[in-house]
């Protein structure tokens, strides 16, 4: 370990010796360590810049979810499944916030078969914009947003204006994706002659919903 630290503090030797081979080795040594020093500096930057806020925010969010509890949210989700305007906005947002990635898609069970692909498309399209303010919802893919936010921070500006727009446009995009995918799903159902089949699924869904035993 000492060698690395020494190399780090010692300024590059000015009076290089005449022997080119030695110079080459010294050059390689410096740049080899220089590379990892730079990576270390970036890592330190990430740790001090992003991690403290992230951990406290994660703690708060997990506690809030434990207090709310999944079953209270289920009723709100079933309500929002009725209309397309809420099915591709409120429902995916609730799913991603409460169940986080990848369990969010299990809320698809509250929908008719023909709506499931569209719900998946809108929910999965929200897993990156959501990390701007709710990083716990998709902690495995933070650096789509954090990579950019890190750059904006190094520029000295606040990342909030960009974050708010990314989140808002994210909501608009998931609505459009839901509607377009629902339209294409219905078109494919008709084209492949499965209309009767999906109508039977709809009837089956209506029966279970009427029976109040929606899972």
């Amino acid at each position, binding site marked *: 370990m000492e060698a690395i630290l020494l190399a780090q503090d010692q300024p590059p030797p000015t009076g290089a010796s005449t022997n080119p081979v030695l110079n080459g080795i010294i050059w390689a040594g410096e740049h080899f360590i220089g590379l990892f020093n730079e990576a270390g500096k970036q890592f330190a930057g990430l740790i001090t810049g992003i991690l403290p806020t992230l951990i406290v925010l994660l703690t708060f969010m997990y506690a809030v979810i434990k207090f709310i509890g999944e079953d209270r949210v289920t009723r709100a989700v079933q309500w929002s499944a009725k209309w397309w305007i809420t099915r591709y906005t409120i429902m995916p947002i609730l799913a991603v916030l409460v169940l986080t990635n990848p369990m969010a898609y299990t809320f698809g069970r509250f929908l008719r078969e023909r709506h499931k692909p569209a719900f998946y498309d809108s929910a999965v399209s929200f897993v990156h914009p959501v990390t701007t303010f709710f990083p716990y919802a998709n902690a495995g893919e933070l650096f789509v947003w954090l*990579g950019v936010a890190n750059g904006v921070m190094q520029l000295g500006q606040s990342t909030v204006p960009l974050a708010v*727009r990314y989140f808002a446009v994210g909501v608009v995009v998931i609505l459009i994706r839901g509607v377009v995918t629902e339209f294409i*799903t219905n078109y494919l159902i008709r084209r492949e002659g499965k209309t009767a089949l999906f109508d039977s699924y709809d009837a089956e869904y209506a029966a279970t919903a009427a029976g109040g035993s929606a899972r």
Partner: protein
Amino acid sequence: MTTVDPDGGDPQYRPVFVRAGRGGWGQGLELTPTPDKYKVISVTGGGIHPVARRIAELSGGEAVDGFRTKVEDAEVLAAVINCGGTARIGVYPRKRIPTVDVFPGEPGGPLAQFITEDIFVSAVSPEDVSLLEGQAVTAGVGAAAAGAVGTAPTARTDAAEGGPAGGPLPPLPDESGTEDRAPRGFFVKFGTGVGYIINTFLAAARQSINLTLNTVLPFMAYVSLLLGFVIYTGIAQWIGGLLAPLSSNPIGLIGIGIVVALPFLSPILGPGAAVAQIVGVLMGTQIATGALPVQYALPTLFAIDGQVGCDFVPVGLGLGEAKVETVEVGVPAVLFSRLITSPLAVIIAWLASFGL
């Protein structure tokens, strides 16, 4: 000794199942008292906790205030605790005593490795304790009172003379226990309430640190290595030069948006959002050096993310309990709709980026 001695010499023992409550941990515990192991100790800060009393009532065991009286470990059927997640949660599982925690909590604290699913269950409330249906356990020595095991339910009615009245599930015992000197009233409710809130925040903090250690930090290490390499070797500037013409005008971005969303390409680019994260990081370096103006970050974020989730469509639909035909129709539907919505998202983001 075939008849059961009604005055408690050899009371009727019944198997009891304790399941995890809402937000609790563990598959649940099956407890069956025997003549030399039938005491349920309640180590909940004094008095006998309703859960402990209910287990004792149902199983025919005896509830003991573990806070005031010492009970030999060998005699303990189960320990009921309201632990903050550090000490008691580990001590009893370590002694292989079945532990019932009335607070929500996962295995944690210094003795976490001893807490296993067959010995610990949490967030238990009185409703979570239930009789195992049907068979009454014949005590080690005597046979069931009415002899025939088949008529177990009736046998239980006159089994324990002092025990609860018959019927499948005895009602919750009222609070007027005989020698129950538990502190009562406002402070207890306030104390357990505060205990519950603190415990939940502690469990949430433990969950966040686990997530950071397992997911966030490893990724930060990998990204820093990438950043260090790209910046130190100057490749960042070279990539910046390459990307700049594309990402500094909307047409280029829409082009990226379409390419990324091509149905045969998006499932390959999708996994783990690896591409999106690497480009996000590279874009960050461009913004830091000023090569890429901040307002172009918004449309670029959508341009490089047209493929999100395209590798996961069948699995995601499966999670939503979709039928086979739905997946057959759903996968092409999602992939083809991306061809339309990915460039569309870039346009919307570009419009929304004015004034940044």
